[in-house]
């Protein structure tokens, strides 16, 4: 009786907010596919557990905080627009979730951005969890198929999750917001075709830069600029400062990971290292301070990536005319 009243109230609310999805199943299960596995839900998930920060933020962006049983594995602070909702959800573990912790949380759906979360030494394989009746979701970004851009894959995630949770309209709204941010960025007036170095981190004095497969490459394509390591077939290859200098970037985008807090993580430290390096210091981009700072986590594919893209687009529009 009570549950029926609640259900009616929830339905009413959903109607009011325009979220009553046309495909709400009257009978039968909800089905979807995620990264090669088919998922079946007897009813809309109510106890989701997320295994990494990007998946947590995706669900929060879809307004699903009240359906989450817990989060884990926070790399840095959640984006300010999600902070209030994030505080409403239990943090099961600040770091990687263990297989025991996941089962103890009694989830009815597990969502991750990376397939590597579903290994035996982490939360267990996807097959194990499906056998227990717990569907698992892996972001299309981490699913090696086709040549869709990371942005399109993110949108595919939103659409699939929207369908699973019955919040299709929120998903479409999120996608159109993101599309708008993409087209706004690509319409910026950037002169010529500047050569850009995307510097993610510096570990043991070795720079990790964007190769040709990650989201910085997609951003470069969108903005009509050249990623100087586009030819390397990896997300974040480890290169040398000499190679960087040899490719003479006009502009350097530096990822700031200062919230992670390890030595060398902040953008300032990375810039200082380049200024100290005998060869790097001679580069016009370093000498003339043509350096753009963005949040490092936004250089990995997530709902936040459009934020970094907008910053880079704006800064490049300014800088490119002085080149």
């Amino acid at each position: 009786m009570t549950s029926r009243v609640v259900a009616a109230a929830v339905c009413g609310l959903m109607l009011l907010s325009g979220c009553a999805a046309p495909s709400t199943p009257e009978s039968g299960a909800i089905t979807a596919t995620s990264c090669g596995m088919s998922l079946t839900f007897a009813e809309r998930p109510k106890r989701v557990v997320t295994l990494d920060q990007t998946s947590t933020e995706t669900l929060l962006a879809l307004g699903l905080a009240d359906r989450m049983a817990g989060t884990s594995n926070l790399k840095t602070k959640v984006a300010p627009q999600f902070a209030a909702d994030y505080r409403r959800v239990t943090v099961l573990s600040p770091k990687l979730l263990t297989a025991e912790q996941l089962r103890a949380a009694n989830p009815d759906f597990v969502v991750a951005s990376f397939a590597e979360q579903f290994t035996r030494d982490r939360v267990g394989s996807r097959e194990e969890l499906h056998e227990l009746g717990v569907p698992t979701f892996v972001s299309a970004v981490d699913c090696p198929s086709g040549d869709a851009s990371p942005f399109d894959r993110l949108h595919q995630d939103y659409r699939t999750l929207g369908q699973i949770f019955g919040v299709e309209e929120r998903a479409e709204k999120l996608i159109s917001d993101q599309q708008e941010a993409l087209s706004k960025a690509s319409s910026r007036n950037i002169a010529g075709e500047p050569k850009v170095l995307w510097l993610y981190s510096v570990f043991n004095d070795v720079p990790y830069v964007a190769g040709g497969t990650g989201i910085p490459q997609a951003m470069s394509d969108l903005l009509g600029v050249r990623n100087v390591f586009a030819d390397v077939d990896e997300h974040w290859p480890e290169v040398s400062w000499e190679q960087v200098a040899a490719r003479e970037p006009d502009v350097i985008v530096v990822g700031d990971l200062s919230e992670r807090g390890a030595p060398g993580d902040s953008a300032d430290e990375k810039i200082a290292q380049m200024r100290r390096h005998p060869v790097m210091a001679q580069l016009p981009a370093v000498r003339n301070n043509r350096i753009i700072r963005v949040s490092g986590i936004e250089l990995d594919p997530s709902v936040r990536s459009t934020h970094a893209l907008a910053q880079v687009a704006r800064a490049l529009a300014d800088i490119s005319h002085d080149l």
Partner: protein
Amino acid sequence: MISSRQADVRTGRASVLPAAAAVALLASVATSLVIGTGGIGYGDLVSVIGVRLGLPVEPLAPLTDSLIWQLRIPRVLLAATVGAALAVCGAVLQALTRNALADPYLLGVSSGASTGAVLVVVTGIGSTVGVTAGALAGALSAFGLLLLLLRGSGLDSLRVVLTGVVVGQLFTALTSLLLMASGDADTTRSVTYWLLGSLASARWDGVILCAIATASALLVARYYASSLDALGFGADTAASVGVDVRRTRLVLLVVTSTLTAVAVSAVGAIGFVGLIVPHGVRFLAGPLHRTLLPYSAVAGAVFLVWADALARVLLAPQEVPVGVFTALAGVPLFLLILRRRGEL
């Protein structure tokens, strides 16, 4: 009179020690089964096992059942078997090489396992089953290379140790090369975690494989117990009392290296157990291998079961790689034994 009292003490010891060892092992396993996430109690354990035995008990929720049956029980049992395996391998190798610093990883088997595991991760063959198989293949190829380099030799201790160390160095270099060439920070991190040793990936298949390997190795090693005692006096002395020195060395090298390969591929290179436990047991139960080997197995099992229980809960909700704990808990324990023996 004095001699009869000594005899009393001996027989007393002989009957008390096996019982104490069995009780310690069972109690450790039983206690550590309920340590960890999820508030598992003995009632839950009873119903999980009861359901498997077809008893009329109320089954638990599927996820709680899975936590206990698919994760917790195999994990504790794997800790026990791997602990036993490492301690037995350490005890045998210490006698075989006449080197107090010998441990199961001395001969490069674990370095081979790392190379195999890294190769699998870097080439993206993927899932953890793949990592285990890769590690096993790597460990066995390292040992194969060792045997190849030692062929035709008399398997003299110094030669075995030096060749083993060289093989280990070769595979360590290969591992570094692979990691550098792949150049991916995330790969490096996940492999490093694996190398430190963790029981998080324990499942029944690993338990069964390790248990069979450990039991067979223990039986073979115990068969050679008196030969190992004789080898302690040197190869010439052993040969003079009728020990086939080369054959003994070869059989035991093959047995311990295979067992180490199985253990390392299941859980990574958990340190310290194989080095320290045999020494501790020698202090408590004497140096004769007929008793040293089974007691080392029990002590190693108890030790790793507790180290892993601590690793699960001490920094909860985070888990510490158990290899860190074996050393953290093992060092003071070992110093305590040394001190009580008055040898420090």
